[in-house]
């Protein structure tokens, strides 16, 4: 990817992010009530989107070919267990990442 293209993609992402942040103030800043289906989506969409993003991150695994996604599944399990145990985002992320790096560099080479 050329630098210009990369800069354009970053600009697109920046503009869309800013739009999302500004839209409610532009359209609902007055006295109009928020449409109920927006309020509803605001409640349920974040859960579904994070689920989607987890799958997106794991799209590269090959269940039918060695190592059958084992490093990813073990590291995800480590993150879940760490988070259930300490409920500290930083510990969960750092622990899971170190676990994954060890798995792919030393165990499933």
């Amino acid at each position, binding site marked *: 990817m050329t630098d210009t293209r990369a800069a354009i993609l970053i600009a697109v992402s920046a503009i869309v992010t800013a739009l999302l942040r500004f839209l409610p103030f532009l359209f609902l800043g007055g006295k109009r009530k928020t449409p109920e289906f927006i309020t509803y989506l605001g409640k349920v969409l974040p859960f579904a989107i994070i689920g989607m993003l987890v799958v997106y991150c794991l799209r590269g695994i090959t269940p039918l070919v060695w190592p059958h996604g084992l490093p990813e599944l073990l590291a*995800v399990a480590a993150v879940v267990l760490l988070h259930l145990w300490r409920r500290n985002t930083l510990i969960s992320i750092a622990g899971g990442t170190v676990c994954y*790096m060890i798995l792919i560099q030393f165990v499933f080479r």
Partner: protein
Amino acid sequence: MSRKLIKQVIIKTIPVMTGYIVLGFGFGILAEKAGYGVGWALAMSVFIYAGSMQYLMVSLLTSGASVISTALATLMVNARHLFYGVSMIERYKGAGKKKPYLIFALTDETYSLVCSGDTPEGANPHLYYFLVSFCDQIYWIIGSVLGALAGSAITFNTAGIDFAMTALFVTVFVEQWLTADSHIPAVAGVIITVICLVLFGGDLFLIPSMFLILTCLLAGRGKLDTPVKPPLSGGAAAADSALERGNGHD
């Protein structure tokens, strides 16, 4: 602007400081390793300023994503910001010249600090919100610049460090799972995406997944939407929202 207020702001933002410096650092390393050094990391942290989106941005850049898929991915990943905005409309009213920046800098973490609403006594709330927002972005920028600088100095094998993004999302998923009223949206998000991944393959599945998730959630609204109003006014509320949807197209 008093010294006391600045001190109060820094104390208040310490949790975000540690989180942002560490997560920003991870982002900086990831960007540098993908060939996007300090200048790029800095630009993303200044202009995009959305944590999980910036992690995703690195993989979009390296996979040669299109403008449309970048825009759609940003739309879906950051859609939650619409709802932060909705809940801050009242609080940010009358902020004057500070308002555009307050809105721009409304990240998950900043939202969690400003929506709690405990402005220090005697302080101008909008000045306080502004300082909190500004400090948070400074922490994020410092973290990502340090990470990008360290990335070029790190000589050990960093293969697998990109798992930090997966770990971030898994952590958020678990956190949401523990606090959600219903697990259906989370499960639907995972299952729909897996089906689309199998059907469309690793390069094309994200957009159909997004549309299917939106469609299914809207279709399941009757079952998933927990009533906020007492049952007696239910008929009137339904009529209201039908009216609003009808008028929503103009």
